[in-house]
């Protein structure tokens, strides 16, 4: 077996050193009746590198890659161009095959990168402190809700109706067990987010208000107004961002008064990967909340010779020290995806991120205009960044399916996101990024026009 270096001669010599007659003597504590004598039946035997590669390639070819279609899907995962150097860096063995940096003297590479990553995320979000990553946006969202309960000592959670339904479902699932009370809603199909309705649901028992920015329909809510209302009732505002590129064009949630800002970092550096691994971002605006944060934090310090260095710090919040009193059970997070994000963000820089955001918005405006010119299609949004909702007068799931036959992946139907709610089914969420060409837009417009005619 190509990954196992021991030879039979090695094995014999080692058993002799140990004083064991055979390998099974080392498994003596496993009850004999449960011990398997040979390879498990019904499972294939080992295969060569060539054979495995061939098998996996065949499975891979059964999928339609985004690059091979006119592609307009978003709703929490976005297709952006990732520079080749990002993938090169994350495949360096020193990053790829390192562990969580528990021994800082020989992990300064990972630690400095995490410090830079935390700083980039904090600035992007308009916050004081960001952690070293969570699993993904949806789990970061739940962790923020749990943190708000710790900070406010209250248990009533108000979810915006326009929060990604998977995120809302994760929060609802976890809340069943922590006995937080969840007040949710469906998205209102109107040109601007229903801030008044949301604010009306905030009361004195509310621990937090969770608002997506831009929201699941692509609209940009006025976070400032919601922050004010939440703070007046002693609640925290949690802002959720699923498209970090947007923050190169629109104000940061922290600047608008959000207390905890969480989100999905996948757009920068990570790639689509059918939903994972992704990158949960988590930040707080006020440094006094740091000790209630979940997850790992990297901090600056000095070594015994006074040289600057970095360590994981404030770990008395964490499970390996605090056990059942920890702020979260998270251990392994999303380190390599944080590296990919950080490298990509460094390549972009302020200027590149702003250009990227502007190009996304330009193309999205173009697509919105051309699509809404189709008879029977109506643009829902008053505001948007690179994603918007169109109402197409038919169940969008069927239309998406039909267009797939023409190699057009038209967007995410609201029926896919809200299967149980017929009233939403004519909505289609369309995302446009720098990877979308004007030809792609024209292809979508022609296909949709044909289908709706």
């Amino acid at each position: 077996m190509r990954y196992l270096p021991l030879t039979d001669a090695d094995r014999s010599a080692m058993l002799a050193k140990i004083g064991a007659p055979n390998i099974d003597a080392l498994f003596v504590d496993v009850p004999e009746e449960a011990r398997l004598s040979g390879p498990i039946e019904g499972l294939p035997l080992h295969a060569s590198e060539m054979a495995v590669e061939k098998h996996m390639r065949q499975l891979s070819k059964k999928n339609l890659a985004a690059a091979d279609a006119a592609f307009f899907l978003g709703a929490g995962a976005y297709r952006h161009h990732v520079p080749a150097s990002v993938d090169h860096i994350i495949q360096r063995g020193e990053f790829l095959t390192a562990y969580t940096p528990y021994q800082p003297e020989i992990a300064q590479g990972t630690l400095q990168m995490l410090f830079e990553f935390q700083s980039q995320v904090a600035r992007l979000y308009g916050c004081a402190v960001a952690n070293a990553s969570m699993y993904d946006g949806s789990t970061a969202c739940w962790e923020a809700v749990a943190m708000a309960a710790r900070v406010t000592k209250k248990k009533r959670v108000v979810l915006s109706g326009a929060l990604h339904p998977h995120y809302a479902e994760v929060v609802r699932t976890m809340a069943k067990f922590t006995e937080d009370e969840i007040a949710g809603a469906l998205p209102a199909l109107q040109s601007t987010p229903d801030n008044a309705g949301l604010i009306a649901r905030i009361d004195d028992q509310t621990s937090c208000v969770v608002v997506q920015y831009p929201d699941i329909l692509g609209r940009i809510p006025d976070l400032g107004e919601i922050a004010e209302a939440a703070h007046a009732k002693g609640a925290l505002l949690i802002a959720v961002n699923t498209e970090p590129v947007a923050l190169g064009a629109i104000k940061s949630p922290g600047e608008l008064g959000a207390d905890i800002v969480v989100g999905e970092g996948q757009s920068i550096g990570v790639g689509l990967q059918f939903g994972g691994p992704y990158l949960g971002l988590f930040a707080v605006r006020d440094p006094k909340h740091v000790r209630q944060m979940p997850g790992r934090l990297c901090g600056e310090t000095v070594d015994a010779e006074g040289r600057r260095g970095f360590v994981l710090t404030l770990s008395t919040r964490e499970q390996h020290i605090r056990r059942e009193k920890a702020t979260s059970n998270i251990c392994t997070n999303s380190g390599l995806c944080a590296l990919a994000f950080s490298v990509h963000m460094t390549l972009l820089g302020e200027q590149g991120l702003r250009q990227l955001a502007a190009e996304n918005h330009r193309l999205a405006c173009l697509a919105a205009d051309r699509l809404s010119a189709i008879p029977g299609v109506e643009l829902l949004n008053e505001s948007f960044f690179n994603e918007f909702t169109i109402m197409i007068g038919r169940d969008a799931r069927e239309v998406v399916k039909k267009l797939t036959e023409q190699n057009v992946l038209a967007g995410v139907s609201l029926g896919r996101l809200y299967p149980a709610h017929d009233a939403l089914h004519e909505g289609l969420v369309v995302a446009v990024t720098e990877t979308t060409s004007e030809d792609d837009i024209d292809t979508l417009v022609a296909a949709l026009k044909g289908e709706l005619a």
Partner: protein
Amino acid sequence: MSTPNASGWKPGTPAKDDHGMDGPPTVTGNRALMLEEPLIFEIGTSQTTGVDLPDVPSSTSSRLGSFTRADEIGLPGLSEPEAIRHYTRLSRQNYAIDLGLFPLGSCTMKHNPRLNEKVARMPGFADVHPLQPVDTVRGALEVINELAVWLIGLTGMDGVAMSPKAGAHGELCGILCIRAALEARGDAREVILVPESAHGTNPATAAFAGYRVENIPATGEGRVDLEALKSRLGPDVAAVMITNPNTCGLFERDMKAISDAVHAAGAFVYCDGANFNAIVGKVRPGDLGVDAMHINLHKTFSTPHGGGGPGSGPVVLSEALCPYGPLPFTARTKDGVVHLVEEENAEAFDHKHAFGRMTAFHGQMGMFTRALAYILSHGADGLKQVAEDAVLNANYVLRSCDDLLEAPFGPSGPCMHEALFSDAGFAEDTTTLDLAKALIDEGYHPMTMYFPLVVHGAMLVEPTETESKASLDRFIMALRSTAERAKAGDPTLKTAPHYAPRRRLDETQAARKPVLAFDGPCAPAGTPQLSEQGGS
């Protein structure tokens, strides 16, 4: 030229001569291939970019409402050559499996095959969106299903929840299944029993799921005390969380009896599968009465640890828990088609009791492709060999060092995949930490230290099956030599490491005055890269 060091960054102070490096100090702080590297904020300017993007005219109409971001964000940029150099320099300050033996007990730092990286990057896996129409992603669903079938087969269980994102997330998933099953029969129980030697994630998970945690005592042999456990079981106990093989590196011989007692008391058995590497292909947890067990794909199935993730933590489930597993999951129907079961069609697939959803989308697809490639490469025969070689390597280390280092459970028999030593016999004032830091100077990542908590000054050594005998022999030589110095009270251990990119770091200062983000402007335009320039 503009001021080269406007940000105030100082190159590292050249190390002194107190560890045998003679030679003059360098102005850069570098020592040949050991290179100091500033922060991106100290070398990158907000006008520099390493990507070519069009300039969109500002007159272009905006639909951003009144939310246009006006102020500078403060993000530094580097050109591509500068960026490659920055991160390459940083990478050289890391230890990694690719550099040498990485004996972190319980973490299973084995070789990461590069075929797996290649496979995960195939466009049909890497460039597909999680919400694409199901007919365009059947191959991705087949990967998930094929891996699920393997995991079920290797563990002898009835089903598997694939979506959890890492081990601790999988633990939570398993405990939530248990709670859902108990609630379904109207049985409110409050307590989860956890051995003292458990990973910290176990009690943290149980508490997060709303349970009170109580400890189970261990025997003098480092195993769960069956009689004590039996006497604690009762109608208030929801589950027992057991790590098997346990964190002392021992197989819980009484596992079946434990399971029987737990089931008789109406509770469930959660098994922490972090150490599954030791038994894969040798014994199936399902045959020992386990109800739920997470599998760290980043341990047993070699997906890269990546400096702290991403992981992946599928949870195998017994027949009693399967109905409660979370959405989404895949199901293959008799016609061979693999379906995605979500909120929409759960009822059609007879899964209306799912406890909910753990995460957006479908789990760690990029880890599934890697783990499947690893599993297919080994096959059922190779995986059995993995467990045997892992256990052989650990016992070889144990028996090559137990004359010198105290192995608290060594006399009672063989270990599994990791060898546990204590600090007994070290000179006064010399600690496990000192030994660990001295191993760094010898070119090794230290073993897991001070865990499990039940052994004083614990050192948990997991060599894994991907080390050759020659590699083990070199490591044993280094470990023995360092242990002898620890017993003799060699004062140079206290100041180790001497040859790493950094000496011991001041963790107290880091926690007392936390500096968690760079506080300052980006480098001004025209800043030359300091690492090129040397000191000012």
